[in-house]
């Protein structure tokens, strides 16, 4: 079996983002999607700290400490971009104005519940940031994650055991093994890694899956 690499996952997510979309890419793995957005599509990236039409990282030495993204990395602004304050920025998110957000996750349930902010470990210091706002506000929520934990357990679960971020919000899951839609009739497998059988994917995932109809 040929697992999807992180770059392949990012490219696969990017393929699903159409021309003209307003998109927020979460911290970590989702950030890589920016590098794979097709050059022939105008896609506008939102960063919740207060900018729209975020550009790539600046040239070395051209960092501006006043121009960073939500991950606190230096970025640039494209012509046509805009700055705004935090209440306006989160109004964009909460108000349903973003077309897509792409988020990492600890767990996604078969109903599309998302757990991605807190392991719930008793000694963990919690931090939530904008995770809940993003997942509740975007029209489409994409999750990008490894299919299995380091211990080999499925991160797609009947019910999240980690503290929830948002209930019933995830639309599509992109893992290193498959692309899976969350539908009202359960999880539907859209694509699988080369050499992976549907039965093996079912076994690894441990929750009911079906093949998506042709799309």
């Amino acid at each position, binding site marked *: 079996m040929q697992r999807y690499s992180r770059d392949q996952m990012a490219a696969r997510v990017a393929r699903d983002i159409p021309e003209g979309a307003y998109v927020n890419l979460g911290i970590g793995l989702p950030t890589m999607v920016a590098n794979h957005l097709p050059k022939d599509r105008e896609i*506008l990236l939102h960063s919740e700290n207060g900018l729209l039409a975020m550009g790539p990282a600046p040239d070395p030495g051209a960092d501006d400490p006043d121009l960073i993204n939500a991950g606190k990395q230096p970025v640039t602004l494209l012509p046509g971009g805009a700055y705004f304050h935090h209440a306006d920025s989160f109004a964009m998110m909460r108000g349903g104005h973003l077309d897509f957000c792409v988020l990492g996750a600890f767990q996604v349930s078969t109903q599309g519940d998302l757990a991605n902010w807190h392991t719930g470990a008793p000694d963990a210091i919690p931090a939530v940031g904008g995770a809940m706002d993003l997942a509740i506000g975007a029209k489409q929520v994409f999750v990008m994650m490894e299919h299995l934990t380091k211990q080999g357990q499925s991160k797609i679960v009947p019910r999240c055991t980690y503290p929830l971020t948002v209930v019933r919000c995830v639309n599509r899951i992109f893992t290193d093994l498959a692309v899976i839609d969350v539908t009202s009739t359960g999880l539907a497998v859209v694509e699988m890694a080369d050499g992976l059988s549907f039965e093996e994917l079912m076994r690894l995932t441990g929750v009911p899956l079906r093949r998506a109809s042709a799309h």
Partner: protein
Amino acid sequence: MINKIISSAREAVADIQDGATVMIGGFGTAGTPLALIDALIEQRARDLTVVNNNAGNADTGLAALLKTKRVRKIICSFPRQPDSWVFDALYRAGEIELELVPQGNLAERIRAAGAGIGAFFTPTGYATLLAEGKETREINGRQYVLEHPIHADYALIKADRGDRWGNLVYRKTARNFGPIMASAAKCAIAEVREIVELGILDPEAIVTPGIFVQRVVRIPVLTLAEPQAA
């Protein structure tokens, strides 16, 4: 390439359906999207709900729209004015429904729609006729009324300059309801004096980022030196 620029006001409002809720920007002479209102009058949609601060002045603009009797209901703060005779007659004849909202609650309810707020407690209107039947609550010793967002299908607004991504800047007090109405509507349509290239508007000074705007129409300002076409 994203291009939100539409070539005419008529085309910009063409898909407004019967029964739609339409926000219309403007306060007095400032910020009223006259070309879009005129295009809406030419269009056939009826049974409309209109949200505006007022209820029309004299016989043009919103008043002319009301005169067509295609507005079922108006949500506004200040309908009665010396020259609001069109509305006055319709209202007295029971031909239009009025929801009267204190101006600040009107603005905040529109903002709440754009910001995804489900409802909010406001002190304005408490213990008045305009809060009758509404839920109230004491919070930290002060009395509040619960108000709900006003969402719209369309917002017709006027800005000064815009670009193909829908970024807008306004001029002076013509800003008024434009930014919040754009955020509260599924489809915000802006008439602008000038369309500029992407990147011309200062990112520090863009008042309405394009994410809130779906259509931009250039409506040249007519001057004495530039006679109106027949």
